[in-house]
């Protein structure tokens, strides 16, 4: 589903990604962990071209992102993204947040989009919030709306950029539940996270990144119980 080859990304003189090779299979849940500044968020953002790729290849669902002929808007609509700070549209109701993409990108009719939005909101446990503005929601509720908004485009892959890092601890659970439901339904997911519990429980594979490189990857058991790389060992000692 996702194939990354020799991905490099620089901001000016600063090289943030120093050659990443990774593959994500269909229905696989891959969790990316690592210290801050390791490049894991940048890596994720390269997967839907929110960052320009300096060099290398990213192929998603058969389309090469760096190919100028690829319609990046079309491609992005197949890749859902959930942000650390939710980035809901504050001037639109919850339902309008969810229906905007389908209506403007896929030209879905309003009634159809509205019904779909209500279904998705029910799925993330927010049926009663359809007509309120995001400003009146808690962080956890906002993030669940953001998940519904991304799902409304019926994406093939969902990218999560530290989805629970900005949440109060008691609100993390609801968001993780929504993500677990998605994983169980067979959604292909790439999750940059600090939630080691989630990575261990739901990850089919865990990637440990540091200094712009993938230092180690393997099953959650391999990474958490028997890490080989000393960097991984150090990192896990600090966070667990």
């Amino acid at each position, binding site marked *: 589903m996702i194939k990354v080859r020799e991905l490099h990304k620089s901001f000016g003189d600063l090289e943030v990604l120093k050659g990443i090779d990774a593959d994500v299979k269909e229905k696989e849940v891959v969790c990316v962990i690592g210290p801050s500044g390791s490049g894991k968020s940048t890596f994720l953002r390269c997967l839907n071209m929110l960052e320009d790729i300096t060099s290398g290849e990213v192929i998603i669902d058969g389309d090469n992102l760096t190919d100028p002929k690829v319609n990046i*808007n079309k491609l992005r*609509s197949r890749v859902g993204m959930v942000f650390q700070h939710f980035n809901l549209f504050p001037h639109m109701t919850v339902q309008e947040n969810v229906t905007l993409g389908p209506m403007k990108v896929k030209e879905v009719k309003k009634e159809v989009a509205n019904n779909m939005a209500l279904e998705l909101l029910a799925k993330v446990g927010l049926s009663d919030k359809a007509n309120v503005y995001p400003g009146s929601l808690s962080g956890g509720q906002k993030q669940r709306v953001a998940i519904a908004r991304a799902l*409304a485009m019926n994406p093939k892959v969902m990218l999560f950029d530290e989805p629970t890092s900005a949440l109060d601890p008691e609100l993390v659970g609801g968001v993780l539940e929504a993500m677990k439901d998605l994983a169980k339904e067979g959604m292909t997911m790439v999750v940059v996270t600090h939630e080691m519990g989630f990575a261990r429980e739901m990850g089919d594979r865990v990637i440990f990144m540091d200094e712009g490189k993938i230092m180690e990857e393997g099953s959650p058991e391999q990474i958490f119980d028997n890490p080989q790389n000393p960097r991984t060992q150090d990192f896990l000692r600090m966070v667990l």
Partner: protein
Amino acid sequence: MLDFISPHISGTLPFIYRGLQLTIFITFAGFFFGFIIGALTGLMRLSNNKIIYGIATVYIELVRGTPILVQALFLYFGISDVVGINFSAVTAGIIAISINAGAYIAEIVRGGVESIDKGQREAGRSIGLSSSQTMRYIIWPQAFRRMIPPLGNQFIISLKDTSIFAIISLNEVTYLMRQYVSTTASPFVPYIMLCLAYLVITIPAMVILRRVERKLDV
């Protein structure tokens, strides 16, 4: 005492009534075109294209760096002399306000758009919206709310700026009042009346503006 004041009050009222109509018309027309110019050049200032950015910057700096009085003189006397097109004073006034307000509005627009968190753009792009759709449905509606207070201020400034068109014999309220004074040779009361004429518009405008601001704050 009353004899000294009251004839000028009743005497100036028809002038104020007539002059204010043109003052208001020129302000609205000028502000309308100024907003279009300002929105366009403000967005051009946000462009990554150096030429587009450059054109907008030159326009904005030229206009903001010269007095509106000089701009009006140049438009009305200068351009018509060379090109041979004779603008009416009203046309020249509307153009001058448009061009002048446009430059300030451009900076209001740029500031408003830049004040929107970049996560909003990213969220729009990530659901597949194009760059222009993201601007239209996500960035602009939010930015426009933030532009309303400074736009209101600019509107009041433009209204007051129309008074300088007295110099090109435009029949707005200041010009008419000067005419009145030159025939009666008693400037005190008529000019107080002129101030009041402007305040009758600007004070309610400011009150409405403040109310809108408070509403947008919530």
